């Protein structure tokens, strides 16, 4: 079940063109959905606007459960973009995957650890940035040695562990889902009997993967806000 990645090197940077394609597709889909939903803004919301407003309130709720809105309001856009981007990314790999010349082109971008770890690192870096910006460097530095200085090494490890778990959790869930889908569709569905046998578990797993994809998008956003709150809150 291993496909090659379409690699391309430019200016000494290695690009996985499949990732580039899927990241672009995901971003475009998210952008199109958002713009279509907010094209006819009205005081009395209808249809898509209702949906997007629900997402807004949902993310607002996530942020509010972690910090007060005065501090957390600035992360609203980040949370919105994260949850929509990751959800759409998780969904993209579900209906099919495209393999050309044994190279995997169409998949979830979040089924690649490079992508998820990039997002995770970005989130953790942002949490550090806002920690310093909102609380000052002294408060920020104090966070590493409280409540006891002896915890300093653990605190350092925690930061890396946070980043790794945040990224790899998402990657693991989505990648595992796609692997199983690929197995069901590719290996089991050989011949008529196999195809018939594969239909039901495939449908079931796809349904479960939609659930997992949604949950993972939620968890990623939730943890982002948890880490943010951890850095920007005043009371420790």
């Amino acid at each position, binding site marked *: 079940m291993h496909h090659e990645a379409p690699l391309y090197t430019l200016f000494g940077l290695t690009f996985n063109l499949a990732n580039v394609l899927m990241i672009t597709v995901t971003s475009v889909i998210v952008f199109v959905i958002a713009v279509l939903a907010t094209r006819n803004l009205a005081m009395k919301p209808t249809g898509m606007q209702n949906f997007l407003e629900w997402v807004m309130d949902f993310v607002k709720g996530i942020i509010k459960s972690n910090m007060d809105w005065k501090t957390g309001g600035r992360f609203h856009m980040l949370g919105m973009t994260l949850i*929509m981007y990751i959800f759409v990314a998780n969904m993209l790999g579900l209906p099919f995957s495209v393999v050309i010349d044994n190279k995997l082109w169409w998949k979830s971008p979040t089924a690649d*650890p490079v992508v998820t770890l990039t997002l995770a690192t970005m989130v953790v870096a942002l949490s550090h940035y806002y920690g310093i910006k909102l609380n000052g460097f002294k408060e920020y530095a104090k966070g590493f040695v409280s409540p006891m200085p002896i915890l300093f090494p653990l605190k350092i490890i925690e930061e890396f562990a946070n980043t790794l778990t945040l990224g790899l959790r998402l990657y693991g869930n989505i990648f595992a889902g796609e692997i199983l889908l690929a197995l069901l569709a590719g290996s089991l569905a050989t011949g008529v009997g196999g195809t018939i046998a594969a239909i039901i578990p495939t449908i079931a797993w796809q349904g479960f993967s939609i659930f997992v994809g949604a949950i993972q998008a939620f968890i990623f956003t939730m943890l982002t806000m948890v880490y943010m709150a951890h850095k920007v809150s005043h009371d420790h």
Partner: protein
Amino acid sequence: MFVLGAGGHGFNGGDILFQLIMFLLLMFLLRKYAFGPLMGVMKQREEHIANEIEQAEKHHQEAKKLAEEQRELMKKSRQEAQALIEEARKLGEEQKEQIIQAARQEAERLKEAAKKEIAQEKEQAMAALRQQVASLSVLIASKVIEKELSEQDQAKLISEYIQEVGESR
């Protein structure tokens, strides 16, 4: 097989860079073209609703005040009406009294006038009677005298009478 996907192919620096740039770009674009305006509308609606509630409260307050005023006015007008009725009744009573008084006076006057008239009639009747009696008695007397008066006496009387008439002239 290295399960982390990118394994065995070296470091995917390009993907990292691309993902980061795309995400930030997406966030920027979404803020500018989708969520920013949406948030604006949501905020606007929030304000609108707050405004409406405030307005409704104000109206309610006003209505309450108006109702109170109306009630006050009603009470006042009812009192006024009561007073008017009372006054009218009093006036009516007075008028009744007056009318009765007037009627009584009128009756008294009529009675008086009738009495007077009766007395006058009586007087007149008496006078007429008296005259009648007088003339009758004269007649009787003259009848009597006629029988006993001689011609001489008569002449004498006539002359006396004439004389008397002449004197009175």
